[in-house]
């Protein structure tokens, strides 16, 4: 059984089609990341799965339940954990009280102390929530999301506002939960986060999934041409170079190639011969962010017409 099944999901607010035919599945023990710009339909999709909103059309199954069915709402919520974008914790309770309170809502919670430790709040048990820093509150939020031992965990931009080491810590927790068999749905603005965590990603734009795959190969990243970039050494012009180069956005020159080995050899050989250097020399392939920006920019430009990347049905 899949943890989450979404088939042709649709939701409109007035005349705005927030979600226009989205389908995907998430398995247990898998981290699935939904990427997309603000207003692309990420949060609406998540909120339908979490049972906060009802879809206009399409089927949704979460941990075997229909989230829109009020009769099974409590059973569903015993199986899921939710970390929303907004911080929402009682200011006057302590960390331990807050986690203990919520643990009482679940039939099979994780041990309170273990969860506090897992999110890195050990030593803060007796601190009142209002005295915590933004990042610590966010970690408390994560603790509340996982205290019920969920089979499906929804994380809506979980590490926004974290410092780099807290982020690493949270990633560690999320991976551990995945390895324990939890299905995790993650939305994020950080491409490095998706790259680090996600087993699969889907890029959503204009209410549709425009690309889906594993982070390493999304949008043909692995097959994309390599880019050699460097600054022109003083006293030379682009015409002096042994290879054709174009001007890049950051002021550096760019040489593209399927296999950069030979070009790089010619370039560095030329530099050594002329007793000069190639400042700021880098060789890379498009990052997940480059692919993401490419996909979502096309979508935004095409927003008025039919989205070119849309492969799934459901046009009005």
């Amino acid at each position, binding site marked *: 059984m899949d943890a989450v099944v979404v088939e042709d999901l649709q939701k409109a607010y007035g005349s705005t089609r927030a979600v226009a035919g989205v389908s995907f599945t998430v*398995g247990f023990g898998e981290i699935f990341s939904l990427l997309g710009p603000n207003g692309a339909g990420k949060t609406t999709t998540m909120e339908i799965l979490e049972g906060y909103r009802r879809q206009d059309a399409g089927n949704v199954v979460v941990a075997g339940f229909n989230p829109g069915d009020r009769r099974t709402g409590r059973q569903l919520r015993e199986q899921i954990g939710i970390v929303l974008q907004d911080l929402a914790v009682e200011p*006057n309770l302590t960390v331990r009280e807050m986690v203990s309170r919520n643990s009482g809502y679940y039939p*099979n919670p994780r041990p309170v102390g273990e969860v506090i430790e897992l999110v890195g709040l050990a030593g803060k048990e007796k601190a009142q929530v209002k005295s915590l820093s933004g990042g610590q509150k966010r970690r408390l939020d994560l603790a509340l999301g996982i205290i019920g031992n969920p089979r499906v965990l929804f994380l809506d931009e979980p590490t926004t506002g974290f410092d780099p080491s807290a982020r690493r810590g949270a990633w560690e927790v999320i991976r551990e939960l995945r390895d324990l068999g939890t299905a995790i749905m993650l939305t994020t603005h950080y491409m490095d986060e998706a790259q680090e965590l996600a087993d699969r990603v889907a890029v959503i734009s204009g209410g549709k999934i425009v690309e889906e795959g594993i982070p390493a190969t999304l949008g043909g990243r692995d097959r994309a041409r390599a880019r050699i970039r460097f600054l022109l050494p003083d006293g030379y012009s682009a015409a002096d170079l042994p290879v054709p180069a174009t001007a890049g956005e950051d002021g550096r020159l760019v040489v593209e190639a399927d296999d950069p080995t030979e070009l790089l050899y010619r370039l560095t050989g030329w530099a050594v011969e002329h007793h000069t250097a190639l400042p700021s020399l880098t060789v890379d392939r498009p990052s997940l962010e480059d692919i993401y920006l490419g996909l979502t920019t096309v979508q935004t430009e095409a927003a008025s017409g039919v989205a070119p990347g849309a492969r799934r049905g459901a046009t009005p």
Partner: protein
Amino acid sequence: MTAGVSSHTESAAASPRRNAAALVWHQIRYEQLSFWRNPQSAFFLFAFPLVFFAILAGVFGNTVLFRYDGRTVTGLQYYSSTIAAVSVMGACYSQLAITVSLRRQEGILKRLRGTPLPAWVMFAGLVAHCIIISFIDVALILIMGVLYGVPFPAHWDAIIVTLVVGAAAFCALGVAVANLVRNAEAAPAVVQFIFFPLVFISGTYFVITSKALNDLAGIFPVRPFNQALLNPFAFDRGFAGHQLLVLAIWGVVGGFVAVRRFRWDPRPE
């Protein structure tokens, strides 16, 4: 898909849910904890009526405020009823209207909706918490009254029933008003805007002799609540049937708005 999944399902099936009463108690405990940790709100809801009663009882203690039905009603008797009523209204109506609108705006309600806690348990916990605060407040006012020398009331059944009906009605009205508040920062102002004029025309702080004003105030819930408490406190009488009915009707109307217009989400769809 992986080995971890089976352990999840097995253990989930193994532990039953807590029973409803235990869950309500759990909820009340944390409401109490949260309340007493916030000295400011605790002071205004809790100590404010006591301070008021101490002052009014001190100033008007044995002064005869008015005669009714051949009886004299002293300041002590009068204010122990009306201040008890106002403390219940503060603990139920004002507290709920402000707490619920604030929790909604801050996303705490939405967050709670994402847990398995049943909605009715959340409400039961909140209402029970408010009733506990009201009862402690009323008990302290009574004790102060006795210390000042007010005669101990005889009709306890009428006092308890009136307090329960009043507390329930004002809880319902509090949640109803919370549903009408769009911006939680404005909640205290909205709450007072409705509350203060009613309290004044209902004779809470001074006796109103205008019949027209009394008739008008009698339509709203504050004066009937005062009157229903004056019965046992000042007139040595039992249940005030008519006043309790008016209170109950307001409670039902408030309850209807509270439930039908309730939103978990800070942003309406």
